[in-house]
């Protein structure tokens, strides 16, 4: 049993050199402030109550911006160090010390965690600023900022922790914040349901993560990253694969990957800034972070990596296909997120050839997808919070800044040459094609096809929103108001402009001269160059990908742009469209495979409980009650009858004794 598995596990000696870990000095010793600031902000806003209604949102912005400034200072300080000294740890206090379990509340500052710190606090700051405009008139504004601050704090704990238990703490923290924010409009039943759905599906993944941590602890006796990674080579192949698959389950839950993808589109019930920050740029990429962070484990097992890549490929196709069919602008973007995170999973599933590429795409995606969501929020803001693209049309003239920033994000996402997405997505597809054997063709082909689909659905979205007939002129929104599209205030457009600049420049700046890849090398190991013998040489891949994307754009222009868009959804539609509109039956499958059998099981258990368990208990009681009701007739109250029964009993006992004695 073990022999074939052992073949799959590379010898432990071949793992990448683990970085030297030094103590943190200078600015880095203040790293605890990174997450304490937003946490304190959240606490103040929660506790102060209505007293903070007036200034609460500015406090929320301030803590995150301060956190960003500190993160930037630590980053600049770290850049000044030689590469081998960039991994540093701070131990804040003993968190858990029980018998053999010892957990430090410690921070790990290395290029990977600092990259995430900058992404989280940077995009977080922009979205906090945007929210001051977007949520300006909302009665729950203070609560919103408190929960958003809580999210930033938890996410920073997740990426800064130097052990798996802190990762888990942050993991659950962001899950809680996500739940609260999806259900922010508590009075809407759909929002409450979506929040519960997200929470429950995340639990499925979290159980996997928890068991993986248990396995690591029982086998290695530690949860500290450094100690785990040093000793991971001593584990059995089977245990190793189990750990990787369970970690992947956790990652799938958090990142909306197949088969746990169905919660993410529903999560769009939350306010749009939440969708941009949590469900596009940061939290949903935590799964990619988890796999990149634990890469010394994945390095050892090709099987584990193959599973990751397969999950990524399946998800990126699912997301792209469903994205083509939705009319809800936020859900299209949500499925686009699912699909793009699929690319990241594919990248980290490729192993040392892809870890850094996954993080690269994560960063560029963080820019342009957050920008797209903020743009969508700006459009909704202008259109009485309507999300149905069939009611939009011709908005480009009314909101030029939104149109331009959204357009740049759109071009970056579809991989328009020399914008962000072009560099990061193409690099992943090239690496996929460079895989040997069937994997190269399957992974690369699926990723290319999905790139074409991405171009199609995003072009469709832009055409339906910003071009064509002004369908809203003849319509009223659900609350009976006319539409008066207008450009959003500066607090909303400014973050969109910054993110649009990121969409243009991030890809080139980060990939030029391998800046990002070299920076991440101490954390993720050197990026392996494409080996010869892949499916397609990497020189021609960009042409094919750009060709597919152009084809997608062209088809969208012809199909969507070439004829008027009906305001009502056309029915009936062809089978694939119907399937895509119903999420490729993901919810139906979940319901049929898990929810219904669960209901049946619980009904059966209720039946067994009522009839079986209760029956035994009640039956015993009834039997005892009935028999004692009869037996008590023996208590006649006549002393002489008692005496007779005593005599009879004595005679019986004596007779029995004699019988035993003389038999």
């Amino acid at each position, binding site marked *: 049993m073990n022999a074939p598995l052992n073949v799959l596990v590379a010898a432990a000696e071949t793992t990448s050199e683990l970085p030297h870990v030094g103590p943190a000095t200078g600015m880095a010793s203040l790293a605890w402030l990174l997450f304490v600031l937003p946490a304190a902000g959240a606490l103040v806003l929660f506790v102060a109550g209505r007293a903070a209604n007036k200034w609460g949102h500015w406090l929320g912005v301030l803590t995150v911006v301060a956190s960003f400034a500190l993160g930037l200072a630590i980053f600049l300080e770290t850049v000044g160090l030689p590469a081998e000294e960039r991994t540093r740890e701070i131990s804040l206090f003993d968190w858990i010390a029980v018998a053999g379990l010892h957990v430090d509340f410690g921070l790990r500052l290395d290029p990977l965690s600092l990259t995430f710190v900058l992404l989280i606090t940077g995009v977080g700051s922009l979205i906090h600023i945007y929210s001051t405009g977007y949520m300006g008139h909302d009665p729950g504004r203070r609560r919103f900022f408190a929960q958003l601050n809580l999210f930033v704090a938890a996410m920073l704990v997740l990426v800064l922790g130097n052990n798996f238990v802190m990762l888990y703490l942050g993991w659950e923290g962001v899950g809680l914040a996500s739940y609260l924010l999806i259900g922010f409009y508590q009075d809407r039943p759909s929002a409450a349901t979506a929040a519960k759905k997200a929470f429950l599906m995340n639990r499925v993944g979290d159980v996997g993560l928890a068991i993986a941590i248990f396995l690591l602890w029982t086998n290695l006796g530690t949860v500290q990253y450094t100690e785990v990674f040093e000793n991971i080579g001593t584990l059995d192949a089977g245990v190793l694969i189990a750990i990787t698959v369970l970690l992947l389950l956790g990652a799938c839950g958090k990142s909306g990957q197949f088969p746990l993808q169905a919660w993410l589109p529903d999560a769009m019930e939350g306010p749009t800034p939440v969708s941009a920050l949590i469900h596009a740029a940061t939290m949903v990429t935590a799964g990619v972070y988890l796999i990149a962070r634990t890469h010394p484990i994945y390095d050892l097992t090709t099987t584990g990596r193959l599973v990751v890549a397969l999950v990524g490929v399946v998800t990126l196709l699912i997301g792209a296909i469903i994205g083509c069919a939705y009319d809800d602008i936020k859900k299209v973007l949500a499925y686009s997120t699912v699909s793009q995170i699929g690319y990241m999973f594919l990248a980290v599933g490729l192993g040392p050839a892809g870890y850094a590429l996954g993080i690269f795409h994560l960063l560029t995606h963080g820019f342009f997808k957050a920008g797209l969501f903020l743009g969508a929020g700006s459009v909704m803001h202008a259109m009485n919070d309507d999300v149905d693209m069939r009611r939009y049309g011709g908005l480009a003239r009314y909101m030029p800044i939104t149109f331009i920033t959204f357009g740049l994000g759109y071009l970056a996402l579809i991989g328009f040459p020399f914008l962000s997405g072009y560099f990061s997505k193409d690099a992943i597809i090239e690496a996929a094609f460079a895989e040997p054997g069937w994997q190269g063709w399957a992974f690369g082909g699926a990723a290319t096809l999905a790139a074409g689909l991405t171009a199609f659905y995003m072009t469709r979205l832009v055409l339906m929103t910003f071009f064509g007939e002004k369908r809203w002129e003849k319509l009223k929104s659900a609350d009976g108001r006319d539409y008066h599209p207008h450009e959003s205030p500066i607090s909303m457009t400014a973050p969109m402009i910054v993110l649009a600049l990121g969409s243009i420049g991030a890809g080139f700046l980060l990939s030029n001269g391998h800046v990002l890849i070299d920076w991440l090398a101490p954390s993720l190991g050197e990026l392996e160059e494409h080996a010869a013998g892949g499916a397609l040489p990497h020189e021609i891949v960009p042409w094919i990908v750009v060709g597919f994307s152009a084809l997608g754009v062209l088809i969208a222009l012809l199909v969507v742009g070439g004829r008027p868009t009906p305001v009502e959804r056309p029915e009936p539609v062809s089978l694939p469209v119907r399937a895509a509109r119903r999420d490729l039956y993901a919810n139906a499958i979940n319901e049929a495979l898990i929810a219904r059998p669960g209901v049946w099981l619980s009904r059966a258990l209720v039946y067994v409980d009522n009839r079986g368990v209760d029956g035994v208990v009640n039956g015993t009681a009834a039997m005892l009650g009935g028999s004692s009701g009869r037996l008590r007739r023996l*208590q*006649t*109250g006549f002393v*002489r009858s008692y005496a007779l029964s005593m*005599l009879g009993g004595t005679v019986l006992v004596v007779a029995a004794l004699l019988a035993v004695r003389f038999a």
Partner: protein
Amino acid sequence: MSPTYYLLLSALLFAIGAVGVLVRRNAIVVFMCIELMLNAVNLTLVTFSRINGQLDGQVMAFFVMVVAAAEVVVGLAIIMSIFRTRRTASVDDANLLKY
């Protein structure tokens, strides 16, 4: 004289006592029958003590006597109080404690 006779006598006394307890209604008589049974047992104990040449049985008989004396005191007191309240000494009339 063979000890068997003593045993037979005690068995006879015990049987008389047992029958008396079962058939008589007067509490005083029942009580005396119980005493009869106890003394039959005492006689058995003493006889076996003699047969085995050990004093254990005789010691035991003293214990029974002591217990019997105590029992008589308590028992007679109970019979007295029942008689005072119910004006009867019949054990069949004192049948309130039942199902």
